[in-house]
């Protein structure tokens, strides 16, 4: 693979060249060495769920067509996919649980590192959860909120509180289908039970429970993570920052945080501003301490503190290849075990912090919320002390960085459309109703060397905004679009259609809105509810002219997200297909029949432009069904079609 085929990102390309020269293996080389990948795995036709197997089904229908237990390709593919949902939901939910735990500790006064930054949100959550707020100390309230939320994980019956935010019609549908999640952990455990040998052998029944589990993530674990993070760390507001590997500094200590949970990264922000440590950095010959992030933990501190982002998933190894990272601190999720072998070529220290996630060749400094600040300071000190070991001749920081605006939320951005004094969703709904906006789309998810880095995200976003579709982004997609300059307000003039341009200009927002980390996809769900509640665009999420996409997905978390988004009624396009194509029935169910069940389905399309077209077609159909006015600035070519 040539470097231009690996990534569209100039910084990545530059460092890939260096990596090649120095013989450093990255995910791209490891991917190339892995090709062709196992066909049974790609098609979802291998099963290891019991020791009658492992079994695999011949996709060309010559060899065995059933596992030893008699499982058909349909059963095997459905079981495997459902397990992916469970794994993804577990990751988000465990993250949510950790945030709830932190809130509890903060409320109990057991930690100095955290406080309650957004009291308004705490109070409104308390009201929603039926917790008394009158004349009560905020710590008391916070404690009860945390306890209540905690109980949702292990809840055995009833319904998740936040699922009641969904439009009535949607809730009724979930109840009718039996997919209203009862408890977050319960549904996940049930997936593991159902998919073990000889339990649930009906593909549709399996996928249906998969949706229930995914809803427990989107409207449970992930939403809890978002809401409580806002309480603890503050609800983001629009903020300017910089992105890409060029944010690393030659003359400062570079500390990169990588992973997902804000509990640690947020105190690292505080610790990195510690006067004593900055003094120490200066004593060590550095001009200061530069903090930057990778993946979603980066998005969390970008949104709340404007901390620069060094890169997205596929840039984690490249960040180290700059030779300028003194310490990379990792917690959980999307952290490649390959990091430490890259780090061995440089002075970079990899420090793991979560008791749940240890890595070969990394130093482990265990984090706990009670002693958050002292631990954070210890890690920053390690970075500072490692600065002197930096090998000057090995430092190559690409001069590539980009400005961006991030920090949009369901509360902030869309209300801006109504002006600061009359905060409402009305103007957004009106813009869609009168056709200035065609609709809205979310582009989310990872990087994957199977698709040129960032190409899927960026080309798709450009195509959508050109067609007056407002785009919201999270996770590594947000970082990709930020690097491409699409998160600058000026991008509207360069790339957006006329209608979207008018809106961006009036409100002063970019055409592509960064709404946070991967758990913050829950912000998108809330936004959709608000739009439905505002009125004029139908009574259910599935009626809205909106679509979702994950053009470069790879993680099981993306599978869980995709399923809660579809089960919430949003058509979703995936760049790489789910590993289920070996089963006709499951493919048919997901790409067609699901519409009759939950009002939305999946499509698989790896070409981002074609995928964007599928989304636009879908949005157009929804507009038609709602009998909305024609799109104001419809281009001729589109009309002819």
């Amino acid at each position, binding site marked *: 693979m040539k470097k231009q085929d690996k990534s569209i990102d100039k910084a990545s390309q530059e460092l890939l060249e260096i990596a090649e020269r120095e013989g450093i293996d990255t995910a791209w080389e490891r991917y190339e060495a892995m090709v062709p990948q196992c*066909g049974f795995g790609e098609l979802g036709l291998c099963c290891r769920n019991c020791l009658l197997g492992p079994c695999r089904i011949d996709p*060309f229908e010559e*060899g065995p067509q059933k596992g030893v237990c008699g499982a058909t390709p349909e059963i095997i593919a459905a079981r495997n996919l459902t397990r992916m949902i469970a794994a993804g939901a577990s990751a988000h939910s465990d993250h949510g649980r950790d945030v709830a735990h932190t809130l509890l500790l903060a409320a109990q006064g057991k930690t100095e590192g955290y406080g309650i930054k957004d009291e308004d949100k705490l109070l409104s959550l308390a009201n929603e959860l039926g917790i008394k707020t009158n004349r009560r100390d905020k710590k008391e309230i916070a404690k009860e909120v945390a306890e209540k939320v905690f109980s949702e994980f292990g809840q055995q019956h009833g319904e998740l509180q936040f699922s009641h935010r969904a439009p009535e019609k949607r809730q009724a549908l979930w109840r009718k289908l039996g997919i209203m999640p009862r408890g977050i952990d319960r549904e996940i455990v049930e997936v593991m039970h159902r998919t073990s040998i000889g339990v649930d052998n009906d593909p549709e029944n399996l996928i249906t429970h998969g949706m229930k589990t995914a809803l427990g993530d989107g409207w449970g674990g992930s939403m809890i993570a978002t809401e409580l993070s806002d309480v603890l760390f503050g609800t983001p507001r629009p903020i300017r920052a910089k992105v890409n590997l060029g944010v690393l500094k030659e003359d400062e200590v570079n500390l990169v945080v990588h992973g997902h949970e804000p509990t640690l990264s947020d105190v690292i922000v505080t610790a990195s501003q510690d006067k004593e440590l900055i003094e120490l950095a200066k004593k060590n010959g550095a001009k200061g301490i530069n903090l930057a992030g990778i993946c979603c933990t980066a998005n969390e501190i970008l949104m709340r503190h404007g901390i620069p982002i060094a890169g997205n998933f596929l840039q984690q190894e490249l960040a180290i290849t700059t030779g300028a990272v003194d310490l990379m601190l990792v917690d959980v999720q999307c952290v490649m075990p390959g990091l430490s072998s890259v780090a061995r070529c440089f002075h970079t220290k990899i420090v793991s912090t979560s008791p749940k996630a240890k890595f070969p060749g990394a130093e482990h400094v265990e984090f706990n919320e009670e002693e958050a600040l002292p631990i954070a300071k210890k890690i920053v000190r390690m970075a500072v002390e490692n600065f002197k070991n930096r090998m000057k001749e090995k430092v190559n920081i690409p001069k590539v960085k980009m400005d961006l605006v991030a920090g949009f939320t369901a509360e902030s951005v869309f209300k801006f459309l109504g002006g600061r004094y009359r905060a409402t969703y009305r103007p957004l709904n009106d813009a869609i109703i009168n056709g200035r906006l065609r609709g809205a789309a979310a582009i989310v998810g990872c990087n994957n060397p199977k698709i040129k880095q960032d190409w899927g995200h960026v080309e798709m976003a450009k195509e959508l905004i050109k067609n007056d579709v407002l785009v919201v982004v999270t996770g590594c997609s947000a970082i990709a679009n930020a690097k491409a300059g699409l998160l600058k307000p000026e991008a509207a003039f360069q790339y957006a259609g006329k209608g979207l341009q008018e809106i961006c200009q009036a409100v002063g927002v970019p055409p592509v809105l960064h709404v946070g980390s991967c758990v913050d996809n829950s912000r998108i769900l809330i936004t959709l509810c608000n739009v439905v509640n505002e009125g004029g665009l139908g009574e259910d999420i599935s009626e809205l002219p909106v679509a979702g996409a994950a053009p470069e997905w790879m993680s099981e978390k993306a599978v869980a997200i995709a399923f809660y988004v579809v089960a919430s009624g949003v058509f979703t396009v995936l760049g790489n297909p789910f590993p289920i194509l070996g089963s006709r029935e499951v493919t048919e169910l997901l790409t067609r029949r699901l519409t009759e069940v939950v009002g939305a389905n999946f499509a698989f399309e790896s070409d981002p432009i074609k995928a964007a077209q599928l989304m636009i077609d879908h949005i157009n159909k929804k507009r038609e069904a709602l009998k909305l006015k024609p799109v104001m600035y419809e281009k001729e070519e589109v009309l002819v079609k």
Partner: protein
Amino acid sequence: MEKIFCDIRKCLGCKSCEIACGVEHSTSKNIFKSIREEKKPRQRVIVRSTTKEPFPLRCHHCEEAPCIEACMSGAMYKDEKGVTRHDPDKCVGCWMCIMVCPFGAISRQESLALKCDLCPDREDSFACVEACPTKALFAGTWDEFKKRLGQEKR
């Protein structure tokens, strides 16, 4: 001549070669599409095992090929490079070749014999060799293969 060899000590029985062979002999040459083609592509290498040890069954392009001797219609023949070829236009489906092949390398597709054709659509690689994750399959001359076996430490 260059042939495909297998170090059966390294064969794990994963059947990746079967899949790659099937995809290679499809119209689309894409795994996701190939399984939906009207005429199912057929793999020409089959992984079997005797007691425990798996190994791929495929044509060895024997120097003195019994299949050619047994073939009454002249469908099996040697080309100028020494490759054992099968001409489907001449094949009458008598299955004599299947009876005599000492390696069990020939299978049937409807009324025709089917065997390894050394990937005619590729220039200098073989689908099965490329797909083998343990590098048990090897492309080269007999001498090269022997040398490689000698170099292996195990």
